[in-house]
């Protein structure tokens, strides 16, 4: 007993391990992080995933293509519409269907609205993670206005399932254009308020500037996409590099920042909301006339082969890879989800920072856990 006590040196700092999650408010879902600490300094993070693994990819093999769309809603639920679009575009590409302009424009407007509401929710929860509860109320207040627009046209608030192979489910509501214009007018006034509340806040600067630096080389080698990658200067916007839907007929700039810290990722998303509003404004007044859906066969069968389509969700590049053997069910479906890849860099950028910064960095990566596990 005496000998044991001798060996312990109280001045010597020991590494210890704490378990964060799976039920923890700041991991935004059921992500479990096993964190090794030395004092307050993070030495290593080991993410444990699978607490919401629902086997969506396997389920896709036993259902038809229109049914897959409804499962993709539930992967990244904040960019539900964009996920649907990825599957639809892939199916349409495989069947070589020409999509009328009206559908393309409607899809693009809806995607950008989805992006705005996703970033609003991110802003709300990011502010809350850093201790600013007001952000939560501001963000969700404005988000409801977009959800109202969705509800009127699509029938659903969040998981809209508005796309179907060959078009959209219903035509847009007569009020749609007016409401979207009203919203943009309103939000252009409100967004500077977000800046006043958080972007210029000294405490926020202290907690985010220089924290969790991700270099351009690392962003490329890890394959980090979305606002997280663009905050490090990685030009990875699929809308720009491989335009789909109506993105080739509008002018918009890809938001790029070069610092790569938490603050840069934050400011990238704020700028993206401005850019999304620009995109919507270009399209909302000239939605072409025409049908809202192409007539498809009742049972959709893809010709044998492999198909890949990527889109830009609010969190990065989503790839849908379908292998078809000519049946009404796919042989194999693989989703390249942005969150899974973005999670891989978590350990790399958090090492050496304090445990309080872990929450800030995790918030700035904007992870949606069901999209990681699928």
């Amino acid at each position, binding site marked *: 007993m005496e000998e044991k006590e001798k060996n312990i040196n109280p001045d010597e700092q020991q590494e210890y391990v704490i378990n964060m999650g799976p039920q923890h408010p700041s991991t935004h879902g059921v992500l479990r992080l096993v964190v090794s600490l030395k004092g307050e300094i993070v030495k290593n993070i080991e993410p444990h995933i699978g607490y919401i*693994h629902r*086997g969506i990819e396997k389920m896709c093999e036993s259902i038809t293509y229109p049914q897959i769309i409804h499962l993709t809603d539930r992967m990244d639920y904040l960019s539900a519409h964009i996920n649907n679009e990825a599957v639809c575009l892939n199916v349409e590409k495989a069947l070589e269907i020409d999509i009328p302009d009206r559908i393309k424009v409607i899809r693009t407007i809806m995607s950008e609205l989805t992006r705005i509401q996703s970033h609003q929710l991110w802003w709300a929860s990011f502010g809350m993670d850093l201790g600013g509860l007001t952000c939560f109320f501001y963000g*969700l207040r404005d988000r*409801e206005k977009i959800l109202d627009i969705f509800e009127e046209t699509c029938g659903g608030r969040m998981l809209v399932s508005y796309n179907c192979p060959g078009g959209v489910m219903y035509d847009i509501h007569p009020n749609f254009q007016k409401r979207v214009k009203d919203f943009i007018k309103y939000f252009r006034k409100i967004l500077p308020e977000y800046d006043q509340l958080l972007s210029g806040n000294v405490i926020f600067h202290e907690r985010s500037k220089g924290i969790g630096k991700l270099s351009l080389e690392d962003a490329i080698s890890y394959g980090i996409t979305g606002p997280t990658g663009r905050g490090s200067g990685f030009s990875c916007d699929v809308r720009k590099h491989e335009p789909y839907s109506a993105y080739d007929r509008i002018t918009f700039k890809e938001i790029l920042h070069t610092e790569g810290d938490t603050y840069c990722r934050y400011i990238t998303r704020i700028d993206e909301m401005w850019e999304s509003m620009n995109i919507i404004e270009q399209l909302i007044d000239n939605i072409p006339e025409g049908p809202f859906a192409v007539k498809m066969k009742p049972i959709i069968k893809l010709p044998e082969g492999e198909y890949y389509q990527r889109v830009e969700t609010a969190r990065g590049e989503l790839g849908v890879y379908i292998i078809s053997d000519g049946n009404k069910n796919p042989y194999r479906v693989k989703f390249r989800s942005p969150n899974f890849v973005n999670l891989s860099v978590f350990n790399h950028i958090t090492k050496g920072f304090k445990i309080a910064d872990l929450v800030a960095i995790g918030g700035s990566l904007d992870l949606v856990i069901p999209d990681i596990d699928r």
Partner: protein
Amino acid sequence: MKKEDFGDNESLDLLKESGSNVLLTTIDDVINWGRKNSLWPLTFATSCCGIEMMAAGAPRHDFARFGMEVYRASPRQADVIVVAGTIVNKMAPVLKRLYDQMAEPKYVIAMGSCAISGGPFFLNSYCVVKGVEHVIPVDVYVPGCPPRPEALLYGMLQLQRMIEAQTMKSRKARNSSHDSK
């Protein structure tokens, strides 16, 4: 909620009138009044329904009107666990432990079709728990995929009605039936 809006007033009155004496019913009333007006939920959200739960606490729908705005991060301080989202096999033991860690009286709301029956993942999925009642006892079911915040609000109000109708006797019976599960 007004009394006439509630569909099942007969059993509510029956529960109140049956069996107990004046003193006990008065104490019950006071305790239930206290309990039902400060239901603190646990921040437990696994997927999409969690976002609607957040929306229910946000300005438009505003939980706080009914005394349930204080989301607690620790199960020791929470009264009600809103199971918002899919529970898979790996998560089920964690959920059970969270429920066990909560102090009595504790209530469970199953929010969304995933928590009720597995929902869209009922068929073909190899790892989804088909209904959260296989793991913990459920008091109120709120259907929808995901339910609107109004639906969750209604579910919470129903839970308040349920608490209002409780007596010491029924509380005991409920607990013992849960333990045997």
